[in-house]
């Protein structure tokens, strides 16, 4: 299972990678912004996308929209964000984001959540 994590906080990326790599048989990709993320999505078969909202160069919402336009949007898309004020939950769901996860996320919960996805 291939997981792509996008976040502009490099420390956070490191922690996500460390935590999620405990899950068996999964490969973790990381990107510091939407543009990097889009490139990885284009060149790899990603199953799960976990992306931050606010990022430089290309934000999480734009990343989802672009990936969707290029037909490379993964089956599972989650927005992990500290604040998504300007978008309503329904709008985000229409874009293909299945769930909004509020930061700070509990890592045990996240590992458990991702493990259950197929």
């Amino acid at each position, binding site marked *: 299972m291939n997981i792509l994590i996008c*976040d502009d906080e490099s*420390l956070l990326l490191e922690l996500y990678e460390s935590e999620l790599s405990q899950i068996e048989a999964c490969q973790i990709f990381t990107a510091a912004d939407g543009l990097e993320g889009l490139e990885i999505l284009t060149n790899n078969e990603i199953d799960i996308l976990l992306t931050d909202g*606010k990022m430089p160069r290309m934000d999480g919402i734009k990343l989802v929209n672009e990936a969707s336009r290029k037909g490379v949007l993964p089956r599972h898309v989650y927005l992990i964000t*500290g*604040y998504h004020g300007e978008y309503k939950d329904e709008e985000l769901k229409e874009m293909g984001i299945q769930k909004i996860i509020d*930061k700070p996320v*509990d890592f045990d919960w996240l590992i458990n959540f991702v493990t259950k996805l197929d």
Partner: protein
Amino acid sequence: MSFFSFDTSDFMPHGHCILWREEILYPMVISDIIIFLSYSAIPFALFYFINKRPDLSPRVKRMIFLFCIFIQACGFTHLVTASNYWRSDYQLELILKVITALVSFITAVVAAMNIKELISLPSPEQYNQKNQELIRLNESLEEEVKKRTQDLEDQRAYLESILSGVQDGIIEFHPIKNDTGEIIDLNSKFINEQVEVQLASGARSLNERDSLLSQLPETKNRGVFEIIKTVFETGKTHVLDPDHSIELGKYYRSVFSKNPTRESVFVFFSDVTDREENKLQVINNSRLSALGELAGGIAHEINSPLQIIDGSLRQVRRSIEKPSEDQNRYLDIIKDTVKKIAKITQNLRRLSHGDLNSVQETEVVQFLSEIIDITSEKLKSRGVTLKQHFLNQSATIIKTNKVALSQIIINLINNALDELDQKEGEKVIGVSFFVTESHYVIEVSDNGGGVPTDNIDKIFNPLFTTKEVGKGSGLGLSLSSRLATSMGARVFLVQNDFTRFQVLFPKEEQ
């Protein structure tokens, strides 16, 4: 022998002079008698004339009177002349002739002296002419009066049609002055029916004719009285918009204008309370949305670092093989603190989204707990004990607008806090949720001084405040009340051992 006392009885009667010739004697005698009778009748005619002409001047009257004596004297002279054909009473004839001569002389002199006035006496033709002229003048005057009356009638109808279209209430103020001529009060006269309409929805009304200051003392405090006085003195129109009357509980747009024809001032006023409250609402909404944006920004900025702390904490735990008791305790403290901060940012975030027009299903107790979390530090720092009463209601869900409701509750708590700041001894704020037969009730109570009876009617009025200058905007309770109304609820005050502000949600609207 004096002049008039001679005896003529032995003289010859006058008949001898004409040799008693009957053809001369009788015509002479008859003519004299006719002259006497005629001369005697003339004074009667003249007296009648004077009587009927009260307009104659006394001088003319006197002259006519002289003429009467003169002509009567002439008459008597003729009578005596006639009798002296047979008798010889020449003494009487002499006396009469002398009298006649005197009177006729005086009459002639007086007539000469008054000839001008006599000439000016109008003739009947002249009278007629004048009369006709007068009649014509009278007719044209009547015509003119009729025309003017019609003009006035038209003017009145014109003004009335304008007045009927005016939506403003119009009151005319008449000054009441003291001995030195200074204006000390105002009398009011209601000019149109709109006065009642515009005042109708206010907290109370005005009475016509009564002293304005005794009815609305605030007129003086707010400077309106001074404005009216200035308009009196300068004649310049003054517009006051908004003109906020706390005592009437309304905002008005008032135009003060001096009456050009009388010593009075008109005030044209209309109720603009809705416009003003909407303005306040817009200000508050934009304040809320600015607050929301800020809260959202803070939440975002804090949550990512918080995530790093949390993640790092896990790494630390994993890297320590056998943590000591202290290490474990401190790691737990870090974890708990992270959770606490996360909860605060979560609440902030909740405050920031959502608009004021939608309603959401709200778990009331959970919701109230979140608000209490936000304010609890503030309460603690000001020495206030918070008591929560949510008896068995943890599962109750009601429809509210969360942003509006949180504004109301935070506002009520802040009001209670301000009130308790003035209190010595134990300070308690209670937040409760309970259900009555007809309502869901959220209550914020405090054991402060309460609301004075005089102010109970006014506390929900916009801009009413008892807080010290600069502290209260006076918007709190008014806006709370409006926010509550917008979601079908209302804010209500109950005072007993505690001051209790209740937000009542009718069950049937849920």
